[in-house]
């Protein structure tokens, strides 16, 4: 080991030139070059977005703690669900002015305005989730309630009896708890620990109101 004995005397002096080449490999690292979506056929674009939306639907129906909804948020799914729900709640009757049935715009406003208020609430309480991620989660978790609406419409094609009411009540209650549970599974991690209940309660109220609108829907004669 004696050849290392003199190493302690080595110091870098100014007369040793340090030179060389620093080269950074500049390849085609620009991701836009690889995934330029301008040239692809429109069908591919639409199918890709639809597949993303469908994948998120699956995540909502089987809520596990995954970050798929949060990482790649989009608002197409919520828009689709909201329009479907509002159209079905409207009943399609021309004389809906005299009923107190919610108009299309009212349902739309409730869903979007409600989502915005809940998002603001969770951010004000110190949540780390971003605004649009939260809107995305809340919108996608309306899916069980939309399914319940479809089921209720089908049930109402039969007679308007108390049996149908009980069936509808069970379906709406189950789907409303499913929605609340699913959105809590996605949102709960981003909240401080001692405020989880404060964030979950408005979500519960929101889905309760939507479930109420679905349950009290009665078709026009």
């Amino acid at each position, binding site marked *: 080991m004696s050849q290392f004995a003199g190493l302690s005397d080595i110091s870098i002096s100014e007369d040793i030139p340090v030179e060389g080449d620093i080269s950074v490999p500049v390849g085609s690292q620009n991701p836009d070059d690889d995934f330029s979506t301008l040239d692809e056929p429109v069908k591919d674009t639409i199918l890709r977005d639809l597949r993303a939306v469908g994948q998120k639907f699956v995540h909502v129906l089987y809520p596990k703690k995954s970050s798929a909804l949060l990482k790649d948020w989009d608002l197409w799914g919520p828009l689709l669900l909201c329009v479907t729900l509002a159209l079905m709640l409207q009943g399609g009757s021309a004389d809906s002015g005299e*009923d*107190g*049935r*919610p108009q299309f715009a*009212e349902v739309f406003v409730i869903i979007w305005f409600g989502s915005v208020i809940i998002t603001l*609430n969770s*951010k*004000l*309480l*110190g949540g780390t989730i971003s605004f649009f991620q939260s809107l995305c989660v809340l919108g996608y978790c309306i899916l069980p309630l939309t399914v319940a609406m479809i089921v209720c419409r089908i049930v109402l094609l039969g007679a308007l009896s108390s049996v149908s009411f009980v069936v509808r009540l069970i379906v709406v209650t189950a789907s409303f708890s499913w929605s609340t549970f699913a959105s809590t599974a996605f949102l709960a991690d981003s909240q401080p620990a*001692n*405020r*989880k*209940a*404060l964030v979950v*309660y*408005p979500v519960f*109220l929101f889905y*309760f*109101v939507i479930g*109420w*609108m679905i349950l*009290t*829907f*009665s078709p026009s*004669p």
Partner: protein
Amino acid sequence: MANTDFHLQFQEFEDEQGFTEHNQGATTVTIDDPIKSRKQRKATGTAFEEDDNDDKTEIFISSKGLLSGQRKSAPFWTFEYYQTLFDVDSHQVKNRIIGSILPWPGKNFVEVYLRSNPDLYGPFWICATLVFAIAVSGNISSFLVNQGQPEFRYVPDFSKVTMAATAIYSYAWLVPLALWGFLTWRNRKITSLVSYSFLQIVCVYGYSLSIYIPAVILWIIPSEGLRWCSIVVALCLSGSVLVMTFWPAIRDDKPRITIVIISTIVILHVLLAVGCKACFFSTYEMDPSKDHNEPSAATNTSSSTKPK
């Protein structure tokens, strides 16, 4: 060592300004909700920026030494200002709701529960819950009343939600605004009054409405006696919370003004309760009329929808 004695004393703060003047440089411990102060002691250093309070300088003793809470320095057009208004934990909200439902003589709601940390979470969401509770219960009760008639087709009345929302939110914001303005004006003449900030008054009013939520749910049962009974009980409880809160602020004033203020607070509270009942729970099938002066209209059973 002398500070540990403070832990054992329960201090009532009568006059907030006097307290801060006397104790400008002293080391004081504010006797707080024990759970809250324990949590704050645990959380010093990490959550310390949440200790900003709006109009009272509080000094907390922590393991890191003497740390002083500052006034809210964020201007009101920034998001951080509003975050300080939502600086509550779940158990704090629960305690405040319980404190507004079960008033204890001598426990001023503002001093015991708010402690210069008024929040807007409670008032906003309690009002929202009340609005939807009224709408849902009103619909259910009108459905139950008309259920026996075979020709009746139940139609949900959605306009009730907007009416209820307007009434309740304007009560919860405009009345505190008027009260705060009046108290501030009187405070200039009589300087020894306990003064509440606007947010504290909004907070008290918001939490005092929480007793109405179970009362409104009880109104589903179509029995007039039960409805009036629950109104009276709810009015007594929430009215006494309000009266006990504002009594220290106005008792030094002239007795005539005191009586006028107290009776105004109580009368407005009564009007809200009776108005909601008459408006949303009348058993008329026709458009509900906003008639505060005819509570007897609600006792008429509707016969207009019976088919002839």
